[in-house]
C-alpha cells in the first residue's frame, strides 16, 4: 500500500493513522452500548494509544548521530509544526489550562497570550539562525558561537535546571492519568508512565520522538476539540463554540452579578479539601492590573524563546526557510487548542451555575446535589465538594468547590456525554504529558551526552559509543525525574511556570545576543548565564521564604529580574573584555545569511 520514501508518504501514513484512531473511538462507543464497563474503556484507550507510540518508537530506531540528534534534518514544515505543538502542550496545558481560566479568568489568561506570543520571538529572533548554525543542541550553539568549554557547560547547566523542573511535572501528570485509567497506585503508575515515555525515545532519539509526537498531537487535539464541540451543541450554545458563545459569556456575567461573590470565612474554608477552589473571580471582566497581566505574559514569552526542548525542534527542518514557516505551523496547531480552552471553561461554568439549565446545581438543595451520580464520583475522586456554610439548605455560589483538573475531566460527564469521551480525554492527557516529557528528557540527555561527554570529556568517541551514552543518560534522567515526581512536591502548573523563568533568566540574552550582537563575547555570555540564573533563583528563594519582592515581580515572574541581571552583566562584561576574534565575527555574518553550508558539519 505504501511505496517509496517514508517522508514522501507522511500525509498518507498519518491520514491512515487518524482514520484508524477515529474508527477505534467508534468501536469503543459501540462496545460501551453493548455494556463494556467504564474502567475497561479507560484501560483500552490508554493501552491502545501507548502501544501505537511504542511501535512508532521502535520503527524509528537508528544508529546514526544526525538521525538520533536532529531526526536527520528532513522533517517537513507542517509535520514539524504538529510535533512542536505536542512537544509544547504539556499535561498542564491539556488538563489544567481550562481550569485555570475557569477559576482565575483574565489574570490567568496572560498565560494564553504569553505562551503564544513567545513564538513570534522564536520565529524572528532565533529559530532560523540556529537552524543555519547546524547545531545538535542549544548548548552546541552557545559553545561554538562563544567558544570554550565553560560557556558550553554553563548552557548545559541552565538547560538542565529549567528542563528538569519542567519534566518532573510531566512525569507526575502521566502518572496521575495512568493511575486513574489503569486503576493502579500512583507510586507505580509514575513508572508505568516513565516506561511509556522511554519506549518512544530510547531507540530512535529525536527521530523516534518526532514521529511519536505527530501521532500524539493527533490524539490530543481530537480528544480536546471533540468534547468542546459536542458539549456546545448539546447545550444548544452554538454549532461552532468559538464564534458563538457571546451570549453564554454575558449570561455568566449576569449570574455572577445576581449571586455576588460572597467571601468565605477562613474557618469554613478549612473544611474544603486541599487543592479545590470556588468561583471567586469574574469570568470575562478585567480582574488584574495591567502590570500583573503584562509581566506574566512577558515572562512566558521570553521563556518560550529560551526553552531548549522547543528550540531543538527547529533543528530538524530541512532548511532555514522551512524552520521559519514551521514556527508558524507550530503556533497554528497550538492555537487550535488554546483558543478552545476558554470556550470549554465558559461551557463548563455555565452548565454548573445556571439554575435554568438541567445540569445547573447552584440554587438546588444541598441534599439534591449530593445525590447526583457524577457529583458522588468526582467527590470521591477529591475533585468536587459542596457544603452548606450558611445553613439555608440550598447551594450558593460560594459553597461549591472544584479542582482545576475537573473542568477538562468532569465536564463531559456532567454534560451527559457517553463515557467513551472520558476515555478519549484520558488518552489525550496522556499523549500531551508524554510528548512533552519525551522532548524534555531528550533535551537534557542530548545536551549532556553531546556537549559534556562528546565535546568536553571524550571528543574522540565513536558514534556507536556516543549513542550508547546518550541512551543510558536518557534512562538515568527519566528515572531521576520519576523518583522526584513520585514524591509529589509541588503542583503541576507551578513548576511549569518556574521552568520558563529559569530558562529566560539564563539563556534568553546569551542566545539572542549571540545572533544579533557581534560584539558579545565569551566572558559576557558566561557572566550573563551564570549571574542570570543565580539571581533569578535567589529572587525565587527570597520571595518563597517571605520576601516582599519588588516592582510587582512575583514567584511566577522572577525570570524578569533574572533576565534583566543577565542582560546587564552580559553587556557590561562583554564591553570590558576583548571583542570576539575575526573568525567568530565571520561566523556570525554567515549565520545571518540563509544560503550556503551550515556552520557545523552534518555529522559533528
Amino acid at each position, binding site marked *: 500500500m505504501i511505496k517509496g520514501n517514508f517522508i514522501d508518504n507522511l500525509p498518507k501514513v498519518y491520514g491512515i493513522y487518524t482514520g484508524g484512531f477515529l474508527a477505534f473511538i467508534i468501536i469503543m462507543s459501540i462496545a460501551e452500548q453493548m455494556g463494556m464497563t467504564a474502567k475497561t474503556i479507560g484501560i483500552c484507550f490508554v493501552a491502545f494509544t501507548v502501544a501505537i507510540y511504542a511501535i512508532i518508537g521502535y520503527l524509528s530506531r537508528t544508529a546514526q548521530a544526525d538521525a538520533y540528534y536532529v531526526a536527520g534534518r528532513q522533517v517537513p514544515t507542517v509535520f514539524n509544526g504538529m510535533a512542536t505543538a505536542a512537544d509544547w502542550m504539556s499535561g498542564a496545558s491539556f488538563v489544567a489550562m481550562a481550569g485555570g481560566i475557569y477559576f482565575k479568568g483574565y489574570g490567568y489568561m496572560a498565560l494564553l*497570550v504569553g505562551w503564544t506570543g513567545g513564538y513570534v520571538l522564536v520565529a524572528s529572533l532565533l529559530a532560523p539562525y540556529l537552524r543555519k548554525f547546524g547545531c545538535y543542541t542549544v548548548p552546541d550553539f552557545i559553545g561554538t558561537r562563544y567558544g570554550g568549554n565553560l560557556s558550553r557547560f554553563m548552557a548545559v547547566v541552565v538547560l538542565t535546571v529549567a528542563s528538569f523542573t519542567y519534566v518532573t511535572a510531566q512525569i507526575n501528570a502521566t502518572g496521575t492519568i495512568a493511575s486513574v485509567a489503569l486503576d493502579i497506585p500512583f507510586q507505580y503508575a509514575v513508572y508505568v508512565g516513565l516506561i511509556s515515555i522511554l519506549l518512544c525515545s530510547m531507540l530512535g532519539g529525536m527521530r523516534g520522538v518526532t514521529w511519536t509526537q505527530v501521532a500524539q498531537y493527533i490524539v490530543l487535539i481530537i480528544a480536546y476539540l471533540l468534547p468542546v464541540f459536542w458539549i456546545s451543541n448539546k447545550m444548544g450554545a452554538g454549532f461552532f463554540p468559538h464564534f*458563538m458563545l457571546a451570549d453564554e459569556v454575558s449570561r455568566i456575567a449576569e449570574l455572577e452579578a445576581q449571586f455576588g461573590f460572597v467571601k468565605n470565612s477562613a474557618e469554613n474554608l478549612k473544611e474544603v479539601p486541599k487543592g479545590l477552589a470556588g468561583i471567586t473571580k469574574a469570568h470575562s471582566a478585567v480582574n488584574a492590573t*495591567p502590570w500583573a497581566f503584562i509581566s506574566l505574559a512577558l515572562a512566558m514569552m521570553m521563556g518560550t524563546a529560551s526553552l531548549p526542548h522547543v528550540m531543538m525542534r527547529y533543528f530538524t527542518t530541512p532548511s532555514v526557510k522551512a524552520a*521559519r*514557516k514551521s514556527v508558524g505551523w507550530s*503556533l*497554528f496547531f497550538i492555537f487550535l487548542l488554546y483558543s478552545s480552552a476558554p470556550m470549554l471553561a465558559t461551557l463548563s461554568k455555565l452548565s454548573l451555575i445556571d439554575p435554568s439549565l438541567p445540569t445547573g446545581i447552584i440554587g438546588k438543595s444541598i441534599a439534591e446535589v449530593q445525590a447526583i451520580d457524577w457529583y458522588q464520583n468526582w467527590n470521591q475522586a477529591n475533585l468536587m465538594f459542596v457544603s452548606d456554610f450558611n445553613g439555608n439548605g440550598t447551594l450558593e455560589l460560594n459553597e461549591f468547590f472544584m479542582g482545576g483538573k475537573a473542568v477538562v475531566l468532569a465536564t463531559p460527564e456532567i454534560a451527559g456525554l457517553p463515557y467513551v469521551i472520558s476515555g478519549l480525554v484520558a488518552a489525550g492527557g496522556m499523549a500531551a504529558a508524554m510528548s512533552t516529557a519525551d522532548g524534555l528528557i531528550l533535551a537534557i540527555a542530548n545536551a549532556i551526552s553531546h556537549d559534556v561527554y562528546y565535546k568536553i570529556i571524550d571528543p574522540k568517541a565513536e558514534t556507536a559509543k556516543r549513542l550508547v551514552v546518550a541512551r543510558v543518560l536518557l534512562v538515568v534522567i527519566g528515572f531521576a525525574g520519576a523518583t522526584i515526581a513520585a514524591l509529589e512536591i509541588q503542583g503541576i502548573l507551578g513548576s511549569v511556570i518556574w521552568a520558563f523563568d529559569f530558562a529566560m533568566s539564563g539563556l534568553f540574552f546569551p542566545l539572542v545576543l549571540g545572533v544579533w550582537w557581534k560584539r558579545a563575547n565569551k566572558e559576557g555570555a558566561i557572566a550573563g548565564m551564570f549571574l542570570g540564573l543565580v539571581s533569578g533563583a535567589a529572587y525565587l528563594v527570597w520571595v518563597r521564604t517571605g520576601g516582599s519582592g519588588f516592582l510587582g515581580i512575583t514567584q511566577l515572574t522572577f525570570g524578569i529580574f533574572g533576565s534583566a541581571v543577565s542582560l546587564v552583566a552580559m553587556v557590561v562584561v562583554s564591553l570590558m573584555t576583548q571583542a570576539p576574534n575575526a573568525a567568530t565575527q565571520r561566523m556570525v555574518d554567515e549565520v545571518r545569511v540563509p544560503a550556503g553550508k551550515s556552520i557545523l558539519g552534518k555529522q559533528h
Partner: protein
Amino acid sequence: MSKQEQHWEKSKGLLMMTLAIWFVFSIGIFLFGAEMNEVTGPFGYPLTYWFTCQGSLGIFVILIFWFANRQEKIDEEFGFSERGDD
C-alpha cells in the same frame, strides 16, 4: 555597503516591524485592558476578553507567516535564499 550588509539592514528593518506589531498585541493593548473591555468586540465578546481568547493568538499566527514570507522575499532579492527543498 556590501550586499551582505544591505541584506542585514533590510532584515533588521523587518525584525523591528515584526516586533512592533508583536508588542502592540502582546503588551500594548493590555495597558488599557479595563477600558477596552467596555467595548463589544468581534462575535459579541467583550473586546479585551476576545483578544485574550482568540484575537492576539490569531494575530501572532498570521504575523509569523507574514514575517516568514517577507524574509524569504528579502533573501531572494539578494540571492541568499536556499535552493530546492521546502
